């Protein structure tokens, strides 16, 4: 049986090309998505540290109270990092921000109140955390970016949801394409299959070459897509890094492992599943006849 795997299948090279191409293209899109996702993840990390709630104490607050409240805040469940900004630091920040000298202000007293800079464990939870902090009476004002931050958060969440849906749709679409391709190549071999059946071949014997074809097409498409993606991302990241060094573009090397693993696993799995579904659907159809 193993010897006959592809022994007599002379035609259908066009189908093999078709299957290869479809998996190649879907895997390419998938890789693009993975790239986007990793990028987003990294940016998310960066955002997180800049999404900071500022909770201001009243100007006349005592240092003990500040310390107390800081510990209290630290104990809250949603809180990530907490940093104390005392009056002195607040002033020097202001001066450097507006590029001024101490003299320019001409103030005798330090008008800047101390504050806590609080980060959430997850960016998502920023608004809830802000609500929590507002409940603490010792703060005079709690500021977390409001409108603007809300919009960014919505954007982040929208991106993730849309991406997830896209991923799912992409998977279903790939599966559809692979299944149809294998179906077509099975139908192109109708006569062979009929003859094998009449010669007493088992289901497994007949299916084997198609499953094999599916997995091989999947693998070859996946590997090619992997290589092409890597080369593409190499140049893309090069370009992006020189053009927009401000953004936090991931390292090319960090892509190799996730892309490689996903490409090989996903594409061979897709090929396998597609072939299986195709075999089943064809068998069902011919049983109905």
């Amino acid at each position, binding site marked *: 049986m193993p*010897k006959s795997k592809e*022994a007599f299948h002379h035609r259908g090279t066009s189908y093999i090309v078709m299957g290869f191409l479809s998996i190649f293209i879907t895997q390419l899109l998938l890789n693009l998505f993975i790239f986007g996702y990793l990028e987003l993840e990294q940016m998310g990390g960066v955002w997180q540290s800049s999404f900071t709630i500022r909770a201001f104490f009243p100007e006349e607050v005592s240092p003990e109270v500040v310390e107390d409240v800081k510990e209290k805040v630290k104990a809250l469940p949603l809180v990530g990092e907490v940093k104390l900004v005392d009056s002195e630091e607040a002033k020097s920040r202001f001066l450097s921000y507006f590029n001024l000298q101490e003299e320019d202000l001409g103030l005798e007293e330090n008008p800047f109140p101390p504050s806590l800079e609080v980060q959430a464990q997850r960016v998502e939870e920023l608004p809830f955390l802000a609500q929590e902090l507002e409940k603490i009476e010792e703060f005079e004002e709690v500021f977390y970016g409001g409108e603007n931050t809300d919009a960014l958060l919505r954007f982040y969440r929208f991106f993730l949801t849309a991406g997830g849906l896209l991923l799912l749709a992409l998977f279903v679409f790939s599966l559809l394409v692979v299944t149809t391709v294998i179906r077509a190549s099975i139908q192109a071999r109708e006569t062979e299959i009929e*003859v*094998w059946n*009449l*010669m*007493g071949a*088992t289901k497994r*014997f007949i299916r084997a070459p198609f499953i094999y074809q599916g997995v091989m097409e999947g693998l070859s498409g996946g590997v090619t897509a992997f290589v092409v993606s890597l080369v593409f991302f190499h140049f893309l990241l090069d370009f992006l890094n020189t053009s927009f060094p401000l953004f936090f573009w991931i390292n090319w090397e960090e892509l190799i492992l996730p892309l490689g693993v996903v490409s090989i696993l996903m594409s061979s799995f897709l090929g396998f599943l597609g072939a299986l579904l195709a075999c089943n659907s064809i068998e069902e159809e011919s049983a109905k006849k």
Partner: protein
Amino acid sequence: MGFLEFKKVYKVYPAGVKALDNVNLSIEKGEFVFLWGATGAGKTTLMKLITREELPTSGEVWLERCKISSLEDRYLPILRRNLGVVFQDLKLVPHWTVFENLISPLLVLGVKKRDAHRLAEGILDLVHLQDKKHHKTEWLSGGEKQKLCLGRALIHRPHLVLADEPTGNLDGATALGLVGTLFEFSERSGATVIIATHSEKLVNRFPGRLVVLDKGKIIQS
């Protein structure tokens, strides 16, 4: 009970055609049987019940104490591996070579390709297709295709050979020669052979049992 047994078999096709009408037939091991009947009498239908390409509408078909009319689908391969069939519409794969079509029953049985080669040589000699071994099957003439089909039916030495109109495209001499080959095969290996045919000449030339079908009814056996 005989080797092959039809018990009150009816076959009515979904389109409403009554192809077999209360067929009762018993064939012994090693018998050489001619199935004779006009076109549309039901010869092919009767054979399809043995190969399980069709199921009887009612009645039972037994082969070697196995009720094949109610065999589960997953045992079909085992049944079919023990049959050698010359199909009326040949069932050859046109883009395979003659050799590939010939050894397909062996591959299904798991025979190694080198052993298949040896067996194939013998059969090609028998059906006089030695010089076409590596030709594409679609290049063969009508008669050559039938010879190939007969070769494929014998290569795995089946216990039961069903030949449906195996000489329709063969000239008289070749036809006699090939049926002679089948007869010899039956004698030597003890296989049971059933030949569906229209040719009175063939039927008269060989000392076989004659079963006559007419409009789905057995009128002589």
